């Protein structure tokens, strides 16, 4: 019995020593199962890679001057609303100071809904937890709660600039025809509220648009409508699976528009893996491409952690560095029993931000807690994404 007692004492002592080195916990969550699994894997890899870089540079300077390592814990919400909500409550119960996620817009909306709407509103018993979203991109979500922040590309400015630039590159184009994944919140909002709007604002004539569902497989009617419309530009606001389906049907029916435009989320490996040949030439605005030095470094480090670098995972990478900057600026204590105060400091810090340093350049922060990120246009050429135009 004595031997065990001694062993226990030693362990405690060692444990004690270990405790000296402080850690700041950041909880990431996203969809690591279901058809959007690749997004979750990449986001997790990017978060861990960024934390690794920060920790190697010494970690986060706390209020009392000591340095704390960043610990990342990633949860899988399977892209379902209920799990998103129980995860944010689980994170609230841990000593995490901020949550980074979710992946899916249909998880983000209910999740923001249970957060406190107005800060310091005693009557609102919503959760007081800062959430810094990296992927969920549906336009206009951060407005829902003052605890919700997003570092996702602003599709409105991107597509507006793309349509303007297309006029210069292809002088003859005037007409646009759309294709919408009608039952996916992000794709639907990106066509009606963004692409259609911006095209008309830039003097194009939007002839019309076809609609299909997330798991449709037969696009013959839609592509024939496209063919009859005979527009110069065809803009497909859909995710890789149906985008590939439509592109293959367009090839079959011999529909070859002058310019092919895609949705931001489709500028990923999935599209190339699904239909590289048919997607040849598709132009997509995106908020990331390994063109800058930092961008290349970020992509390589994330690859080490088995994650692919695209606009979504790199947003997670940027979030980590922004949070480090905010934590140091707001001088968080990193002390377990001042947890709620630290969270409130991070929220206020994020709200105060006017600009952040992104991988492609400076990102402007808007009043309703969204981001206005630098962007560039990439094109699918020979089975990989090539930078077509860099407006920076």
């Amino acid at each position, binding site marked *: 019995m004595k031997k065990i007692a001694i062993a226990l004492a030693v362990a405690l002592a060692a444990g004690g020593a270990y405790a000296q080195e402080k850690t700041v916990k950041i909880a990431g969550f996203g969809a690591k*199962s*279901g*058809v*959007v*699994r*690749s997004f979750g*894997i990449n986001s997790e890899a990017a978060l861990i890679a960024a934390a690794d870089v920060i920790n190697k540079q010494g970690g986060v300077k706390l209020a009392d001057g000591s340095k704390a390592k960043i610990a990342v814990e990633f949860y899988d919400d399977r892209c379902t609303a209920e799990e998103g909500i129980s995860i944010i409550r689980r994170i609230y119960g841990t000593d995490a100071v901020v949550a980074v996620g979710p992946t899916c817009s249909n998880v983000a909306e209910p999740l923001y809904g249970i957060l406190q709407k107005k800060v310091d509103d005693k009557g609102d018993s919503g959760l007081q937890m800062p959430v810094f979203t990296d992927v969920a991109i549906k336009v206009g979500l951060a407005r829902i709660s003052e605890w919700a922040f997003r570092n996702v590309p602003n599709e409105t400015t991107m597509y507006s600039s793309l349509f303007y630039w297309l006029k210069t590159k292809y002088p003859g184009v005037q007409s646009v025809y759309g294709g919408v994944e*009608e*039952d996916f919140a992000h794709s639907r909002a990106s066509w009606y509220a963004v692409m259609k709007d911006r095209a008309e604002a830039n003097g194009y004539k939007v002839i019309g648009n076809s*609609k*299909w*569902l*997330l*798991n*449709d*497989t*037969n696009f*013959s*009617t*839609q592509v*024939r409508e496209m063919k009859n419309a005979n527009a110069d530009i065809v803009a497909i606001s859909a995710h*890789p*699976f149906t985008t*590939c*389906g439509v592109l*293959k049907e367009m090839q*079959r*029916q011999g529909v070859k528009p002058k310019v092919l435009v895609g949705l931001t989320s489709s500028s990923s*490996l*999935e599209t190339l*893996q*699904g*239909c*590289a040949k048919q997607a040849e030439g598709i132009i997509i605005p995106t908020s990331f491409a390994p063109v800058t030095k930092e961008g290349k470094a970020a992509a390589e480090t994330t690859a080490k952690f088995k994650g692919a670098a695209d606009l979504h995972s790199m947003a997670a990478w940027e979030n980590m560095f922004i949070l480090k900057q905010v934590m140091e600026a707001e001088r968080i204590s990193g002390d377990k029993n001042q947890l709620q105060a630290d969270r409130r400091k991070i929220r206020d810090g994020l709200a105060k931000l006017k600009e952040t340093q992104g991988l492609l350049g400076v990102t402007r922060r808007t009043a309703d807690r969204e981001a206005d990120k630098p962007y560039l246009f990439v094109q699918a050429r020979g089975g990989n994404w090539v930078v077509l135009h860099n407006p920076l």
Partner: protein
Amino acid sequence: MLDFLQTLSDGVLFGATYALIGIGFTLVFGVMHKLNLSYGAASVGGAYCGLMIVKALLGTTPAWLVFLGALLGGGVLGWIVYVLCFHFIPLSNPLAPLMSTMGMLLLIDEVIVHLTAGMPQNYPAVFDDVMLRFGEFTLRGDLLVVFAVAVLCMIGLLALLYRTRLGLATRAVAQHAVAAELCGIRVARVNATTFVVTGLLGGIAGALIGASVGALSPLLTTPLTVKGLIVTVIGGLGSIPGAIVAGLLVGGFENVFQQFRGVTERDMYVMLLLFAFLVFRPGGLFPAKS
């Protein structure tokens, strides 16, 4: 008018994929009286096996070899589904297999997602560039292949069911397992064989559907399962020719309504078609002689 004709023919042709999966469903539900919700997932799973194995062995994906792999994959999956979901569950609770196969559906989906990180896999197609053109009117070549295979499967299955001892044993086991056992039929063996056969059929269906769509993704399983059930009921439970005719009917009906009522209401009309059959002709197109 040409537009309507083209829409109808495209729909009916695409209905061949519903027919192909419908045959399997009507065999499982109608002839074998088994509640197998995982049949749609097993078909897609079989197609994945074909793709994965051939890609691992050869690096490239020749269409015919992938289809063969899908066939075998489907058969193996059919056997696994039988052992895990039916073999050990007593007949006294008919609802238990409904739930075990639902668990199997989730399991197969999740395994596919983990192997491919949820990304759609490009699926080799046969004759997919063949477009029969009659002036403006076009017919997709690969869907004609799908239709031909569906008819071939029908002939093969009808022969198997109504001409061979295995077919007889299958129907006997389906109608009254205990009585069949008393007549000396090894029920477990017959069931296993029948599940393998339906698995093979599922593998072909999954492969050809993947080929006609061009990409394979777990997104396919739920719509396939729902369409398979609808086609089975409209065609008449257990009637294989019924499944084919119903598949074409649903395909055409769906495409026409997509043309005129738009995609958000399209599926509602398919449901109304099903209700019409359930109310006015519950036996389906070819009611079983009960």
